[in-house]
C-alpha cells in the first residue's frame, strides 16, 4: 500500500460520510456544504485518475456554481428540512 | 442532394440562438421563426425521402468517418419520423402564431423550436451519446415548457417530470458507460456489430438501463406518471407536441435499442406484455377522468401501449403497423389537443361536463374534435382504422389471440369515452351563454391541414405504406443499417 493508496482510502471514507450526511442532516445549508465536499473529492479523484480537464470542470461547476445555486435557492425558500 | 441533412439540426439551432436579437427589432418576428424553420425542415425531409429509401444516407460531421466522429444515419425509419416531427411541428407552429402566450413570449418560441429540434436530432443521429444529448435537449425544453404558465400547477407537474426524467437520463448514461466499457465505441452501428462478442449478462444489464431511460419519454407503464400532469398543465400547443413528437422520439430510441443494438428474443415478449398493461391501465384511467386534457393524455399513453404491442411482435408487418399507428397518432392527437384547447378556452373550464352543447355554438371546433375522436377510435375509412387493423390482425396471425382480444377491449373502452365527449358536444343543451370569442384563422388553418391529411391517408393508405415498408425493414433487418455505415470508409 503506497502513500497515494492510503490517501485515496481516506478520501473515499470522507466522500461516503459526506454523501450520507447530505441525506441525513436536517439543516439544508449543511447538506449543501456536504454535497460540495462530495464534488470536491470527486474533483480530486479525477485529478488522480489523470483527467485534469474533468477535474477543472468539476471544481468550477460542481464545487463552485452548483453550490452557489443551491445556496441562493435556500435563501429564497427556507433553511430547515421540515 | 442539393443540401446537407445536417442543416435540419443546424439551422433551427442558429435560429433559436438568434431569436433574442431578432426580438429587439420587433416582437412579432419570433412568432414566425418556428414556422419558417420547421417549414424548411419539412421540405428537406420530403426531398430526402427518395435518397434514404434506396439506402441509408450517412452524413459525416466534422470530417471524421464513423466511428471516429459523430455521424447522422438517416435510414427510411429516421427519415419518416423526421418527416412526421417536422410536419407536426410546422402545423403546431402555425397554430402558435395567434396563440396567446404569456410574457416572455420570445422565450416560449425559443423553447418550442428547440424541443422539436431535439426530437429531430434523436431520430437522425447515428451515435449513442449524441442521442443522449439530443434527448436531454428535448426533455429540458419540455421541463421548462411544462411550467411555463405561472397561474397553474405547472411547476408541480414540471417537478414530477424533472425528477423522473433526471433519473432516467442518469440510467441512460450508466447504460452508455457499460456499453462503452465493453465495446469501446459509441457509434450505433459499430456497437450493434460488437455487442454479440460481449457477455450476454452484461448486455442485458445495459439494455435494462437503456429501456428504463427511453421508457420515460415513450410512456411505458410504470414510468409514465409524469405524462397526464405535464400534458394538462403545459400550454395547449406544447401538450399537442408532447403527444405528437416527444413520445415519438422516445419510442424511436427504444425501438432502435431493442432492434438494432441488442438481440434478445425474450425482450419482445416483455415489450408486448408491458404494452398491453400500459394500454389497459391508461384506457381505464382515461375513462375516469373529468378533465378533458387529462383524458387525452391517458388516451395518448394508451395509444403508445398499442404501438408497443405491435413493436413486440417483432415481425415486419407488425412494425409497419406500429409505425403507421405512430403516424396516425402524431396527426390526430395534436388535432384533438388543439381543438380541445380552444373548447376549454371558450367554455372557461377544463371539465368535460362544461363542454355541453358546444356543437351548436362552435361548429368548426366541435367538428374538428369529433373528427379526431372518430379517427383515433379507428372508424373506417379514416386513417386510424388501417393501422389498428394491421396491428390486431398481425397479433392474431402470430398466435397471440388473448392479447389481441384484450387490445380490442382497450379500443372499445377508448371508443366509449371519446363518444361520451362527442355526445356531450352535440346532444346536450348548454346551460349558460358565454361571451363570443373568435377562433383564429391560423388555428383553423392548422387544424384543417391535419384533418385533410387524415382523410387522404385514410382513403389512400398505400401512399404512406410504400415508405413505411422500408422503414420497418430497417428495424427488423439490421445488417443493411450496419453495412451502410461502414461502407463509407
Amino acid at each position, binding site marked *: 500500500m503506497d502513500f497515494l493508496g492510503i490517501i485515496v482510502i481516506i478520501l473515499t471514507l470522507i466522500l461516503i460520510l459526506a454523501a450520507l450526511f447530505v441525506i441525513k442532516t436536517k439543516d439544508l445549508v449543511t447538506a449543501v456544504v456536504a454535497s460540495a465536499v462530495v464534488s470536491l473529492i470527486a474533483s480530486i479523484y479525477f485529478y488522480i485518475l489523470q483527467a485534469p480537464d474533468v477535474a477543472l470542470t468539476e471544481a468550477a461547476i460542481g464545487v463552485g456554481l452548483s453550490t452557489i*445555486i443551491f445556496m441562493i435557492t435556500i435563501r429564497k425558500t427556507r433553511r430547515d428540512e421540515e | 442532394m442539393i443540401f446537407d441533412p445536417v442543416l435540419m439540426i443546424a439551422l433551427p439551432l442558429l435560429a433559436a440562438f438568434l431569436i433574442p436579437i431578432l426580438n429587439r427589432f420587433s416582437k412579432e418576428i419570433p412568432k414566425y421563426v418556428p414556422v419558417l424553420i420547421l417549414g424548411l425542415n419539412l421540405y428537406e425531409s420530403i426531398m430526402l425521402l427518395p435518397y434514404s429509401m434506396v439506402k441509408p444516407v450517412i452524413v459525416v*460531421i466534422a470530417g471524421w468517418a464513423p466511428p471516429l466522429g*459523430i455521424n447522422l444515419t438517416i435510414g427510411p425509419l429516421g427519415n419518416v419520423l423526421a418527416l412526421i416531427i417536422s410536419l407536426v411541428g410546422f402545423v403546431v407552429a402555425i397554430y402558435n402564431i395567434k396563440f396567446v402566450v404569456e410574457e416572455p413570449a420570445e422565450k416560449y418560441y425559443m423553447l418550442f423550436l428547440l424541443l422539436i429540434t431535439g426530437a429531430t436530432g434523436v431520430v437522425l443521429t447515428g451515435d449513442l*451519446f449524441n442521442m443522449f*444529448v439530443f434527448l436531454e435537449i428535448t426533455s429540458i425544453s419540455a421541463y421548462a415548457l411544462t411550467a*411555463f404558465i405561472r397561474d397553474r400547477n405547472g411547476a408541480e407537474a414540471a417537478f414530477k417530470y424533472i425528477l423522473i426524467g433526471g433519473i432516467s437520463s442518469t440510467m441512460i448514461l450508466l447504460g452508455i458507460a457499460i456499453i462503452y466499457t465493453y465495446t469501446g465505441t459509441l457509434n450505433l452501428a459499430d456497437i450493434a456489430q460488437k455487442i454479440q462478442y460481449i457477455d450476454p449478462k452484461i448486455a442485458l444489464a445495459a439494455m435494462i438501463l437503456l429501456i428504463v431511460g427511453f421508457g420515460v419519454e415513450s410512456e411505458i407503464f410504470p414510468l409514465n406518471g409524469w405524462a397526464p400532469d405535464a400534458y394538462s398543465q403545459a400550454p395547449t400547443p406544447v401538450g399537442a407536441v408532447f403527444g405528437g413528437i416527444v413520445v415519438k422520439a422516445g419510442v424511436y430510441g427504444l425501438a432502435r435499442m431493442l432492434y438494432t443494438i441488442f438481440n434478445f428474443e425474450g425482450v419482445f415478449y416483455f415489450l408486448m406484455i408491458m404494452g398491453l398493461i400500459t394500454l389497459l391501465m391508461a384506457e381505464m384511467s382515461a375513462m375516469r377522468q373529468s378533465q378533458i386534457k387529462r383524458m387525452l393524455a391517458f388516451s395518448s399513453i394508451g395509444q403508445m401501449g398499442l404501438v408497443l404491442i405491435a413493436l413486440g411482435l417483432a415481425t415486419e408487418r407488425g412494425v409497419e403497423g406500429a409505425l403507421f399507428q405512430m403516424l396516425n397518432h402524431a396527426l390526430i392527437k395534436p388535432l384533438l389537443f388543439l381543438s380541445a384547447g380552444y373548447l376549454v378556452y371558450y367554455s372557461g373550464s377544463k371539465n368535460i361536463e362544461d363542454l355541453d352543447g358546444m356543437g351548436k355554438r362552435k361548429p368548426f371546433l366541435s367538428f374538428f374534435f369529433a373528427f379526431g375522436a372518430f379517427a383515433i377510435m379507428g372508424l373506417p375509412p379514416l386513417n386510424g382504422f388501417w393501422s389498428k387493423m394491421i396491428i390486431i390482425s398481425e397479433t392474431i396471425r402470430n398466435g397471440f389471440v388473448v392479447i389481441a382480444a384484450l387490445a380490442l377491449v382497450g379500443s372499445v373502452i377508448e371508443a366509449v369515452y371519446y363518444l361520451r365527449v362527442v355526445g356531450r358536444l352535440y346532444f346536450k343543451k348548454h346551460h349558460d351563454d358565454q361571451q363570443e370569442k373568435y377562433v383564429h384563422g391560423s388555428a383553423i388553418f392548422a387544424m384543417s391541414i391535419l384533418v385533410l391529411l387524415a382523410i387522404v391517408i385514410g382513403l389512400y393508405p398505400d401512399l404512406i405504406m410504400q415508405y413505411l415498408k422500408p422503414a420497418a425493414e430497417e428495424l427488423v433487418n439490421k445488417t443493411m443499417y450496419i453495412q451502410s455505415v461502414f461502407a463509407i470508409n
Partner: protein
Amino acid sequence: MRKALAVFFLAILGYYMLAVLLNFPFGIDHLNPELAGAYLRDTVSKTGAANVVTSIVVNYRGFDTLGEVTVLFLAATGMGALLYKGKTMGRSRQNASVIVKAGSRLLFPLIIILGAYVFIHGHLTPGGGFQGGAIIASGFLLMFISYRNYHVNHRILSNVESTAGSIFVIIGLLGLLYGATFLENIMPLGIPNKLFSAGVIPLIYIAVGFKVGAELTALLDTMLKTVK
C-alpha cells in the same frame, strides 16, 4: 416501511451493478485501437491540438458540444422564463464590508483574465470554454455579493450569448461551405503546442467561453434578483 422497501430494492440493484463492474478489472489496458487508440495516435498530426480531450470535445465530437451549449442555453432561457416577473427587482442584501469590497474589486479583473486564459488555451492545457466560462461567472458572482448595486446589463449578456452561439453554428456552416462537412476544420493546423494552432478549435472554444460566461452570469443574476 417505505425506507425498508427502498433499501431492499437498492441492495438488489447494488448487487447486480457490482457484479457487472467486477467483470471489468480496474485499470487494465483496454483501449479500442479503432477509436480511443486512434484518437491518441492521430490527434496531434490531424487536428493540431495538444490536448486530446479538447480535440475530442470540440472537433471529433463537436456536434455533442453544440448540443451541450444548447442545453445550457435552454437552462438559462427556461430560468428566465420561469422566474420572469415583468419588472426587474433589486437584490435585497446588505453591502459587504470595505475590505471585501476592495478585495473583490482587486480580484475581479484577475478572475476574468484567468477565465479568458483558460478558454483561450483550451487546446494546449487542461481547461476550455466551459471551465473558463464558469470561472468568469464566478468573478461576476463576487461582484454581485460584495456590491449591492452592481448591475449587469441583461441586454448585453443576451446579445453576447446569441452572438457567440451563432458564431459556433456559423463556423460549422463555413466548414460545410468551404470543406465538405459540418464543423469541418477549414483553417491551417499550425504547429502543435503553439497558441495559434489546431485550426478552428480555439475559435470555437473562445465562442463557447463567451457564451457560457454570459449565460451563467445571467443565470446567477436572475436567481439572485427573484424576491423571496
